[in-house]
């Protein structure tokens, strides 16, 4: 049941991305081109999405559990740290270089173009690089922390 609902949600999400033009990298780059051929469509898309998702999230807050699972899996962190901002900036640079973020990139796989395969392959590689980086960082901090434990 969970996978069925997820597939439906993913499909509706993909239809929304495509109908709004957000699967077109040229249109996303035009949104980011504030000092050139600015196309504000992305802001309207985000506004439309928030107009539905915000009441949906407010409704979820009043319920104790979702319809078909045991609990809501919501992020709990509140602190603003360097990783959050540095990660968002790095992501923003990549987004501005090509005009693709993860959702549209995956939706555009259906076009079967070499450019999309190359981008999605590099994106998955970036996720693996981060995993290696996070592992290296936590092992290093464990070594540093060791003397104080003993």
């Amino acid at each position, binding site marked *: 049941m*969970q*996978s069925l*609902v*997820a*597939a439906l*949600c*993913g499909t*509706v*999400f*993909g239809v*929304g*991305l*495509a109908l*709004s*033009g957000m699967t077109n990298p*040229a*249109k996303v780059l035009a949104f980011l*081109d*504030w000092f050139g*051929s600015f*196309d*504000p*469509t992305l802001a309207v*898309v985000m*506004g*439309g999405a*928030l*107009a*539905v*998702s*915000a009441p*949906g999230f407010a409704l*979820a807050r009043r319920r104790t559990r*979702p319809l078909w699972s045991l609990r809501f*899996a919501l992020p709990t962190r509140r602190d603003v740290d360097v990783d959050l901002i540095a*990660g*968002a*900036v790095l*992501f*923003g640079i*990549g*987004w*501005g*270089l090509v005009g693709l*973020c993860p*959702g549209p990139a*995956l*939706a555009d796989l*259906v076009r079967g173009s070499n450019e999309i395969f*190359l981008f999605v*392959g*590099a*994106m*998955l*590689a970036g*996720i693996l*690089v*981060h*995993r290696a*980086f996070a592992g290296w960082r936590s092992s290093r901090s464990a070594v540093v922390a060791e003397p104080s434990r003993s």
Partner: protein
Amino acid sequence: METAFTPGWGLFGGLLIGLASALLLLAIGRIAGISGIVAGSLFPPDGMRGWRLAFLAGLPLGAGLVAWIAPERAAFEITSSAGRLILGGLLVGFGTQLGSGCTSGHGVCGIARGSRRSLLATAAFMLAGAATVFVVRHVLGGTQ
């Protein structure tokens, strides 16, 4: 490259994206953050790979439906070189993991639930994206 402002389709598509996000949360309690779902499908923190792969498979399926039913809505223009695609992909993959989210997770879901982290992250990646386009198009004078 110029594209036309299409607020009507933008609003309609945005409503569908919001609907999908709200439904995923209310039905199975999950955040529709694509970068998190992709990473979670590779390394599921809770051992659950099924719903993640199902959601991700829906994205190209939905875009394919639009290309099939309304081909005039399916414009797709990508002019980046191979090197730029690889660099951009690596940065998007790494950055979304380090920053715990992307346009959907922070921009749509995070802001919808009033997260200050998501609001700041969204401002940061939009500013960084605009600065990048400014440098590429208006300082280096390149095409994208």
